[in-house]
């Protein structure tokens, strides 16, 4: 382990002092990390309202637009942004909706109401997923160490969303902003995989000076079978 390797130590944990009920995102103990200026930066984007919407857009798209104030993406792999509300295309009848947390409950209620007559499913996944923001001019190169997606600007323009494998974890990647120097991706991953991906992403950035990150879960196991033995 390199000397500068960072692992979330217990000391970092703000043990008390927060007003209950206290919340904790999966990367709460990770400080954002950065390589040489402008190259690569990793940060968690915590706390957003996230919903999976299952709906046949041909039948319910219009109703959704009225209820949510934004369109469903017209084409696969695209996103629709309206202020702080965003819709990702995840599949032909599956979308991820992002809204500011404060609006989430009202938003969900509105969508439910608007789609009342239509076969649909709206599921709150705000806490299921978190987002890792990957920015800088080496963001594409770093991500290419993890995924087989073609992230070249010719193949992955701004606004593009794609589900794929990132190292050994599944996620959705969104190019939010900028093509080259200012590229900013967000990678939506599930809670339990976030720390793993964080560390693999940091590893990918080692060549530009991103400090090594060691996974939080490095437990040792019993290496003998003990369960039924009686002392």
């Amino acid at each position, binding site marked *: 382990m390199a000397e500068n390797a960072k692992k979330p130590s217990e000391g970092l944990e703000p043990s008390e002092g927060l007003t209950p009920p206290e919340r904790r995102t999966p990367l709460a103990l990770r400080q954002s990390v950065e390589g040489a200026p402008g190259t690569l930066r990793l940060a968690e984007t915590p706390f957003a309202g996230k919903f999976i919407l299952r709906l046949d857009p041909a039948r319910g798209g219009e109703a959704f637009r009225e209820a949510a104030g934004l369109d469903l993406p017209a084409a696969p792999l695209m996103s629709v942004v309206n202020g702080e509300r965003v819709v990702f295309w995840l599949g032909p009848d599956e979308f991820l909706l992002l809204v500011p947390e404060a609006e989430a409950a009202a938003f969900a209620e509105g969508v439910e109401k608007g789609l009342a007559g239509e076969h649909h499913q709206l599921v709150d996944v705000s806490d299921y997923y978190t987002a890792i923001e990957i920015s800088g001019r080496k963001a594409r190169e770093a991500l290419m160490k993890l995924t*087989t997606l073609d992230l070249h600007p010719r193949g992955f323009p701004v606004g593009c969303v794609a*589900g*794929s494998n990132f190292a050994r974890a599944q996620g959705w990647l969104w190019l939010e902003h900028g093509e080259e120097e200012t590229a900013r991706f967000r990678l939506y991953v599930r809670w339990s995989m976030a720390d793993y991906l964080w560390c693999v992403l940091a590893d990918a950035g080692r060549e530009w000076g991103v400090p090594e990150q060691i996974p939080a879960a490095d437990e040792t196991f019993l290496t003998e079978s003990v369960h039924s033995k009686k002392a």
Partner: protein
Amino acid sequence: MFVISCPYCGARDQSEFSYGGEAHIARPEWREDMSDAEWADFVFMRSNPKGVLAERWVHSAGCRRFFNMLRNTATDEILAVYKIGETAPQVQAKLPATPCGEAPIGSGNDAVKVMQPGEAE
């Protein structure tokens, strides 16, 4: 590793997909008089062709949709991709000259294929 064209997401690496086995094997409706053999045919028996196979894949890391694909199992050439519920398109495939033989080119083989005198390039 193949490049598979998901009918929804486009060309992606095979590692994003999961294999779903032979396509167009309809689950039989439950009947009291269905024989064990008829049922076993659905559960276990497969055509396993060396040649064109209609198979199911699911884009598990992407859009999670199942779809069908025609692939030449003698060469791994992907011949067509179509959605669930659609009928398989007609395709041309480079099939082995003999049942167990090798496809004319590009297949798995015991020794590297060497063209014989007079064979067209």
